[in-house]
């Protein structure tokens, strides 16, 4: 068998193999997994949607903004981490800022966020945790650190006319420790916290 004839035959074999594999791996496999997922874990498979007052308000896994349309923080809600997804918190454009450690724009942004929090929450710069000042990798990070959540308690309580201790207790009850004690970091899910907050009377 000459090399050229061999190559032609191989190409024909390759094509058939590829098409068969595409059917098996590209169509049957994902559909089968979808079927299993929808039967066994429908909530997760469909985006871990959460409801408030009977309507879907988002996904527990996807960060959302609690700001005015212009991006000004609404004081009555716990604020999420800054987001670099699209124009911010854009579910169609996940992603980080990709600003390098010496990036001017990042330095400016951090300084601005810090100034804003200093102003809105009346705290000194050294008390502001890093997650409050930095954008996440996905721009859709649903969590903030307990420190950042607790830092926001006085502002939220004041804005809602609630007692600080009640709000603080709410936050503390919402702190999720590390999985198995050593995976990840202690976090507070902002959307779930705010849903609980809205229900707090």
């Amino acid at each position, binding site marked *: 068998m000459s090399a050229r004839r061999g190559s032609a035959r191989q190409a*024909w074999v390759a094509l058939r193999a590829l098409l068969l594999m595409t059917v098996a791996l590209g169509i049957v*496999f994902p559909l089968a997994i979808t079927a299993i*997922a929808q039967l066994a874990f429908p909530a*997760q498979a469909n985006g871990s949607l959460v409801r408030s007052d009977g309507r879907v308000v988002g996904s527990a896994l996807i960060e959302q903004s609690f700001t005015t349309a212009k991006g000004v923080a609404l004081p009555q809600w716990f604020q999420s981490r800054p987001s670099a997804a699209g124009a911010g918190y854009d*579910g169609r454009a996940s992603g980080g800022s990709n600003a390098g450690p*010496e990036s001017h724009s990042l330095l400016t942004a951090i300084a601005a966020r810090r100034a804003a929090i200093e102003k809105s929450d009346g705290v000194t710069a050294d008390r502001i945790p890093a997650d409050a000042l*930095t954008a996440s990798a996905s*721009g859709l990070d649903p969590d903030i650190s307990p420190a950042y959540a607790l830092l926001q308690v006085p502002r939220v309580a004041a804005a809602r006319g609630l007692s600080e201790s009640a709000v603080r207790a709410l936050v503390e009850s919402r702190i999720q420790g590390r999985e198995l004690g050593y995976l990840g970091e202690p976090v507070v899910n902002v959307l779930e916290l705010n849903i609980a907050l809205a229900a707090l009377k």
Partner: protein
Amino acid sequence: MGAQLWLFAAQLGTVILVLAVAYRPLGDYMAFAYASPRHLRVERGFYRLIGVDPSSEQSWPAYVRAVLAFSTAGIVLLYALQRVQELLPWSLGLGPVNEALAFNTAVSFVTNTNWQSYSPEATLGFTVQFAGLAVQNFLSAAVGIAVAVALVRAFAARHSSTIGNFWVDVTRGTLRILLPLAAIAAVLLVAGGVVQNLDGFHTVTTLSGATQEIPGGPVASQEAIKIVGTNGGGYFNANSAHPFENPLPWTSMLQIILMLVIPFALPRTFGRLVNDNRQGYAIAAVMATFFVVSSTVMTLLELGGSGSAPRLAGAALEGKELRFGIVGSTLYGTSSTLTSTGAVNSMHDSYTALGGGMAMINMMLGEVAPGGVGSGLYGMLVIAVIAVFIAGLMVGRTPEYLGKKIRAREMTLASLYILTTPALVLAGTALSFAIPGVQADVTGTSIANPGLHGFSEVLYAFTSAANNNGSAFAGLTANTPWLNTALGVAMMLGRFLPIVFVLALAGSLAQQDPVPVTAGTLPTHRVQFGGLLIGTVVLVSALTYFPALALGPLAEGLLHS
């Protein structure tokens, strides 16, 4: 920092423990899968349909032709699917992908690189994702393992003119190894919160009254093979940082383990097939050493948080997800860059300069510790050939590895192998700055962070492409004609030239009769040889990339540390 280090130690310990537990059963299973003379019924049907005789063996040139034919078909089909996207069902109304990007993406997924010049949410519909990309996630991984197995067979062979049957190897790799693992992984990921549906985006009104679009799609089925096959191409732009790809710390840990499990078990398969399990342990131990050292260094650097922005913010959390923390991010980043996966759960571009440099160094090691599925093993074995050559001379014998002599032909092929990737990385990076028109485009359009960090972005891109990793300093706008083309070429040559060299090497090793082991034979299963192998990997890459690293991450990191 102390507490964080304990966390790191515990997480690293978990990874190592699980890999150690999986090493023997999975490695033995894979050895059995490739060595078994029996064909499953579904396989026999498949061979009949594609018209191959599974019992016939191929010479190395025939094996090469089969690899190239299969991969070329893959590139053509994937390119075509993207170009006619608007005609396909479930395309979410997205249009055709432009030529350069379609070329880049097709090459990227077929070469197991999964570099993404595009933002998936905005570019690709479901059909291209699952019928095109996900299929290549399986097949490119299966090709990698097949080539590695062919090389291992050659070491075990005596006086053989054939190195196996590619169609059988690729079919078994897919059906017996990747598919079952991916199915289990997919279900686990769904349980953790990864979405798996056929809905598009749906719009919700948020708690505060704004609107937000929540994405959907067959994510888990693709995510599973993306990780198991060390592919790394994300369903979403944010890749495994996206909460729908990687919702929880434990799913992140699961992904780390799944990335590493096949590459780390393949040395066992190697040991089994050459009938000397100690050889497998030696290779695995070398890989593990790199993994432990590299992940520790990167973690220390990120926890140290040097550089202006991390200092100003108080920690290097820009581009990192809080649920993973710094430790969960660096462990993932190390796993991903050492395995040629290229998935990220944090943005390497925003790492500290030296931490990001570490990600680059991981790739510059040649993706051998443990490297991509298959490619890591064959890469490590080629470097072992080089190490054996120098060491063999030093013990006064014609160098031999597993009884196979390393003569001029073997040395030529091994040398060409180690020459290819550095040449592609350095030439690609240099050309990006040397060609006048291109230079303007690269510095003006592509680079997101001007200055030293911008150089690092370009260097990272070519390092990632030529080593078939696929991760990025993602600030770089790579969707330009130059970068799409140049990176596409780098990925293609970085994948297929080494494969041709490896298979040619396999052909020439298979023909040899093994030399018997005597006291004069250099033992290749001891700590001593492991150390030598580590030294060779480090020295070869350090000497090659030192100037380039000096101009990027070192210059930036040392200035601001």
